[in-house]
């Protein structure tokens, strides 16, 4: 931890200081520090900086915060640690550096988790995303019995084999910050690190939103509109994919990113419909399959772009 930081910026006192410390640490490892993607998504992995950039031969090192929306996890602000909106901190390094575990442990030290007094463990976790057509092997990283991060070596993303393999780290920011700040309720997190009247908590920022969105996700969201949006996003994605091939040959693609946006959209709309309870068990599988097919086609398009490493 950086001792020169003013008190209100220290990761163990301030949620924003905590995020800044992680960003600074990974910036020093050569990562580009991106800002959140401007779309609703279920996890940082959906950000094209991970999903698409993990593909192809070009090196890529990036870190960013991604607001993650999981409509089903909403609890109307009444559960101490479950929310329908939270932050993930995502690091992606391609190819995975040989010392990625050491870097990860140093990043924990940078946010105040000292491995001399904490019990840090790498516990098996085979990661799979059926909607993204992706899988990898790695661990849940435990600190004193609490899962604080996921660590994955991507083997396949969007149906494409990773060559070379990228390493992905995902930190659950609220959970880690709660541990470091020593609070049991997420809404009690000190957001800005100030005291007294100047103090702003996580609840001040997000509690109202949790209540409103929980109601929206479970009770109000317009399902007829959402079903329509799913179809529209799916159709648009397919349309952009088909139109993107330069001169109609399947050598170079020019629209992978806009097409992938529609895939992200379809995925989030599906999550909302799922939260509304209007998708049956059998239909659920077929929706997941449809999103996966979009993701795979986008992956295929991306590896035919210049940034994706097409020759």
């Amino acid at each position: 931890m950086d001792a020169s930081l003013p008190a209100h910026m220290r990761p163990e006192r301030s949620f924003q200081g905590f995020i800044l410390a992680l960003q600074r640490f990974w910036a020093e490892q050569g990562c580009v520090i991106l800002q959140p993607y401007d779309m609703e998504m279920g996890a940082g992995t959906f950000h094209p900086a991970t999903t698409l950039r993990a593909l192809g031969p070009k090196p890529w090192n990036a870190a960013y915060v991604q607001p993650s929306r999981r409509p089903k996890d909403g609890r109307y602000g009444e559960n101490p640690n479950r929310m329908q909106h939270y932050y993930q901190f995502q690091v992606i390094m391609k190819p995975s550096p040989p010392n990625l575990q050491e870097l990860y442990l140093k990043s924990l030290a940078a946010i105040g988790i000292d491995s001399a007094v904490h019990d840090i463990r790498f516990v098996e976790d085979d990661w799979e995303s059926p909607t993204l057509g992706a899988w990898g092997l790695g661990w849940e990283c435990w600190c004193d019995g609490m899962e604080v991060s996921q660590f994955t070596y991507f083997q396949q993303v969007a149906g494409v084999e990773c060559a070379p393999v990228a390493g992905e780290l995902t930190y659950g920011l609220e959970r880690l910050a709660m541990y470091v700040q020593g609070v049991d309720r997420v809404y009690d997190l000190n957001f800005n690190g100030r005291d007294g009247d100047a103090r702003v908590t996580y609840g001040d920022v997000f509690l109202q939103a949790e209540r409103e969105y929980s109601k929206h996700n479970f009770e109000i969201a317009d399902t007829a509109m959402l079903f329509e949006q799913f179809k529209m996003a799916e159709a648009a994605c397919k349309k952009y994919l088909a139109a993107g091939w330069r001169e109609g040959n399947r050598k170079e693609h020019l629209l992978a990113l806009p097409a992938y946006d529609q895939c992200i959209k379809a995925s989030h709309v599906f999550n909302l419909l799922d939260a509304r309870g209007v998708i049956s068990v059998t239909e659920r599988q077929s929706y997941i399959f449809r999103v996966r097919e979009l993701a795979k086609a986008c992956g295929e398009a991306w590896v035919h772009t210049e940034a994706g490493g097409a020759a």
Partner: protein
Amino acid sequence: MPELLLELFSEEIPARMQAKAADDLRRMVTDKLVAEGLVYEGAKAFATPRRLALTVHGIPARQPDLKTERRGPKIGAADAAVQGFLKATGLTSLDEAKIQRDPKGDFYIALIEKPGRDAIDVLAEILPVIIRTFPWPKSMRWGARSGKPGSLSWVRPLHAITATFGPETEEPDVVKFSVDGIETGQTTYGHRFMAPAAIQVRRFEDYEAKLFAAKVVLDPERRKDAILTDAKQLAFAQGFELFEDVGLLEEVSGLVEWPVALMGDFELDFLTLPGEIIRSTIRNNQKCFVVRNAETGFLVPKFILVANIEATDGGRTIVAGNERVIRARLSDAKFFYETDRKTKLEDRLFKFEDILFHERIGTQAARIARMEKLAAVLAPIVGADVEKAKRAAKLAKADLLTEVVGEFPELQGTMGTHYAHKQGEDGEVAFAIEQHYQPKGPDDFVPQLPVSVAVALADKIDILVSFWAIDEKPTGSKDPYALRRAALGVIRLLIDNGIRLSLVELIDQHYDTVVRSIAEHSKSAGKTFWGGKGKIDLLDFFTDRLKVQLREQGARHDLVDAVVGGQDDLLMIVRRVEALGKFLESDDGKNLLAGIKRASNILGIEEKKDKRTFEGAPDAALYSLGEEKALAKAIGEVAAEASAAVAKEDFAAAMSAMAKLRPPVDAFFDKVRVNDDDAKVRENRLKLLNEIRSATRAVADFSKIQD
């Protein structure tokens, strides 16, 4: 003699894979050594989260020389053949070949000596192959090299390989090879946090000691012992007892290189939760042990965690952190439990309408309806109250929809019983919910309460008939729906409880129900899921399972075929097997079996010769010898007596009756020549032999018994 030390140092290996990996490594290396003519004295393999290690001692320094002879052309053969022979064997001229005389002529023989290679060179050749072909259940690629084809796959990134070879008294050599850019050496690393520095090692002895000094306990058994001893001690010091858990101990020992057991507390208030929920929460999610009061057996608000470090603060932070997590987890569990309590089990059932049990069989709701119906049929047979059996069948699966079971699937049944008690169900009904899954295997508890027995049978028979109906039977090692286990469960329920029933009748009746149920499902899904076959035959499957079961109990499974003969009452089959087995152990039994087999053999031969059978009653007027008459008389008496005994299901008495046949049968074969010159007498004697077979068949088909 020299020894090998091999260590494969990697990132954290999943706990569940470590033991098998160590065993595979030992087996693959030693098999290959032996195949290369390097017979070793002993080998031992170890695993920690970060390494697989192997030591093999008593390996000869060199392979033995191999001498082989190769036969060449005949003396005077064409020059081309001679040149070919010389080239193939490496001889410079025929002068170096021996000549061997043979009835077919004189041949050149080349003696080829293949000198043995140094063991270290052999190792350098076999080890990389073993590493590249190692059978991990799941493996992965990593790093820059993963962009190229042919890159190494390992369970997690592999960082270093230590491989040394040499005699105990000397400085060993490194077995030189490289795999995907990793060069072998003598450098390994200690504990990730407490002693991460590089360590130079020579051979197993100093390797293990240096690792220990660097806070790594290499041997998983030692780690387990340490954890168990320390955990028991911690519990004992507080006046409590550790709730031992072999599976958890195994897993936890695979998560640490330097185990440190620590004890933590949780709030007394959580003890209002059922003990199983507390244990599942703490065990599954946190991989911690629970602690109980030695006298009452009740849990106490303590848990024991196993850390991987000796923390500089004595573990205070670690315990506090684990306590926080356990508190949060138990709060969740309590919330789930309290939520569950708000809804009665039967009020959950409508959801099963939307849940498929199997896409071609239908919904879970339809399955439950079939189970209710079958349980009602079974209830009077097993002595259960019909209404209670129906109620229990109806509620048996309801807990699958509870929050607690959603979170902890292993509590299925347990929670159902618990919630049923709490909502005031009849005790037998409540118990049947948990017990209907039993017996889950050959050693599991077999329910005895009649309602439990009825529902347990209904559950298993329905699953068997349903999968038979859609022709999804187990094949070879594939039995995804555990149908063999279900059939064994039925067998054990019937036998252990002494229940008699006609299995075929029951199956046929239930098959009609299943067919109707699948037809409805097909209709609502707009597809055809059922081919419309007329009948299913499950009896053979049951008798096969019965044989397996008897064999595992050390009983005469081969007698099953001898007694089945159209029987479908499993209890009676087993009783007959028991009686027959006992009989066959007696002298009377052994000799009678021999006599009957002899009769069958003779009949078989003569039937073949004459291309006819010898059915029908023999003609008493044609008996000329006393032994014939005596045998005929005995057959008549014994057949009547044995049939009467079988009718009374007194199989022991049936066997005693059979025993009376032995002296006349023995005497008959002693004195009487079956193949008499008079064709009529011969035919009559063959008919008499046939009578022996048919008289004994009421008890068993002796010809199907193996000696």
